[in-house]
C-alpha cells in the first residue's frame, strides 16, 4: 500500500507542534457604551479601525459580536455593554515587539479616552489587562 502524501502545511503543523513554538491570543474589547451608560454613536467605526490596526500589527484578526458584557467599576457601579471583540493569534515576536505594543496601547488609550470609558480591556492569553489611564 502506497504511503499517503502529506501536504506541505501538514508538515509545518507537525514540526511546530514538536518544536513547542506557540502563538499568543490577543483580544481587544470595543465598547458599546460609555461609563455614563450612554450608547456610543460610533462603536462600528472603532471596531473597523481596530481590525485595520490588528491587520497591520499582527497580520489579521477576527471580530465577534457578543450578547452582553458586564463590568464593575472600582466604585462598585455596574456597567453593562454589548461589546465587539477583536481577536487574533499573533507571533510571540510580534506581541513582544515594543513598537507594536506601544501602537496597540496608544489605540486602546485613545479609544478609552474618546469613548469615555472606565477601563479598556486587552487580553493577552490568560491575562486580562485593564487599562484605566488613558494619557
Amino acid at each position, binding site marked *: 500500500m502506497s504511503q499517503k502524501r502529506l501536504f506541505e502545511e501538514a508538515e509545518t503543523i507537525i514540526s511546530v507542534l514538536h518544536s513547542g513554538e506557540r502563538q499568543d491570543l490577543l483580544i481587544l474589547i470595543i465598547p458599546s457604551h460609555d461609563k455614563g451608560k450612554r*450608547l456610543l*454613536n*460610533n462603536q*462600528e*467605526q472603532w*471596531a*473597523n479601525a481596530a481590525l485595520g490596526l490588528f491587520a497591520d500589527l499582527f497580520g489579521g484578526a477576527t471580530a465577534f459580536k457578543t450578547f452582553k458584557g458586564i463590568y464593575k467599576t472600582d466604585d462598585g457601579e455596574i456597567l453593562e455593554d454589548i461589546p465587539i471583540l477583536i481577536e487574533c493569534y499573533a507571533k510571540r515576536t510580534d506581541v513582544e515587539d515594543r513598537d507594536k505594543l506601544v501602537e496597540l496601547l496608544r489605540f486602546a488609550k*485613545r479609544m478609552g479616552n474618546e469613548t469615555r470609558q472606565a477601563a479598556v480591556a486587552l487580553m493577552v492569553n490568560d491575562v486580562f489587562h485593564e487599562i484605566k489611564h488613558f494619557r
Partner: protein
Amino acid sequence: MRELNQYAISQILGSEMSLIEEGRFGNLGLLRTTAESFARNSQKKRASKSQGRSLDEDRLIVGAFETVRQGAAPDSILWDGTLARKFERQCRSVGLSAPASHLNRRLLNVRKNQRRYAGLGVVISPTTKSVPHPSIAPQFAHAIEFALVQLRYRYGVSIDDVLIDPELGTKFEEMAGAMAPGISAAELRLGALYLRKTRHCKKQELPLFESLDPAVLDEQWRTPKAVGKTARQSVPSAPGLIEVDEGHRCLYVTQTDDLAPAVEQLSTGHPFELMANHFWKPHLDKLRLRFIAGDKINGVRARQWELRLIKDREPVFNWPLCAAAA
C-alpha cells in the same frame, strides 16, 4: 520617613539631575555606581552632540526649502504636492535622509518658532508669493471631512499629520477623491486646512457658544426626508445648516454657503455608501436629511450652530471640535 527632596538639593547645587541606579555604601556598590556615572556622562555628551547636529539639520532643511520655494510660504508644502516633492528631493541632495514627513514637520516647526530659530541663526526669508486662502467647495465638503475622520479613527492623527505625511496624504487624497471626482489634490488639501482652521470656537465666541441651545432649532428644520427623497427644487441655493441622522444617532452636520449642491450630493447616498465598513452599511431609506436655510438662525451664524451641534451630538462622520471648545 519623608522622601529626600532632590529638587531642593539640585537647586542649591545648581546642578542638572539624571536618574541613575541607587548607589550603595562602600566597595560593594562601587563598580555599579562608577559604571552608571560613566554611562550617564557619555549619554549627556551624545545628547549635546545630537542637539548640535539637529540644529545643523534644521539649517539644511531651511536651506533646501529656500532653494525650491520661489517665494512660496512654508505651509505651501501641506497642499502643493509639486513643491513638497521638490523640497524632499532638495533635502536628499544635501544629504538629509530622514523620512519626508519628518523633514516637513521640522520645516513647519522652524516656521512656527521663527523668533527662537532666528536667535540660533536659522531664518526663513519672507513669503513673496500670494497664498490661496483655504476654502471648501460646498458640494464636496463632506468628502474631505469623511476621509479625514476615517484616518483619525484608524491612526489617531491630526489634520496636520495627514497633510505632512506623504503616505497618509495619499490615502486622504484617494479616499476623498473617490467621493469628489474631478477635484484636484491641492483643492482637497486646502479644504482640509480650511476644516482645521474652522473646527474650533474662538475664545471671544465661547460665551455665545455655551449659551446656544440646539432645541431652539427643532421647529426650524425642514421636515426630514429620507436621503435620496429630498426634492432638488425644494432646496434653495442659499447658506444654511444640514443634518443627516440614522434614527437614534447623528451621522453628519455641516454648515454650507450653498445648500443646493451640498444637499444634492448627500442625497445621492453615495458618500455614505463609501463610508460603509465591516460593521456598518448605510440603508438609505433609514438615513434622514434635514436642513435650515439662512446665514443666521435665530440671530446666530450657522457656523456657530454647526459647532454647537457637533459638540452636542457627536456625529459619527464629523471631525470633532478641538479641546478649547469642547
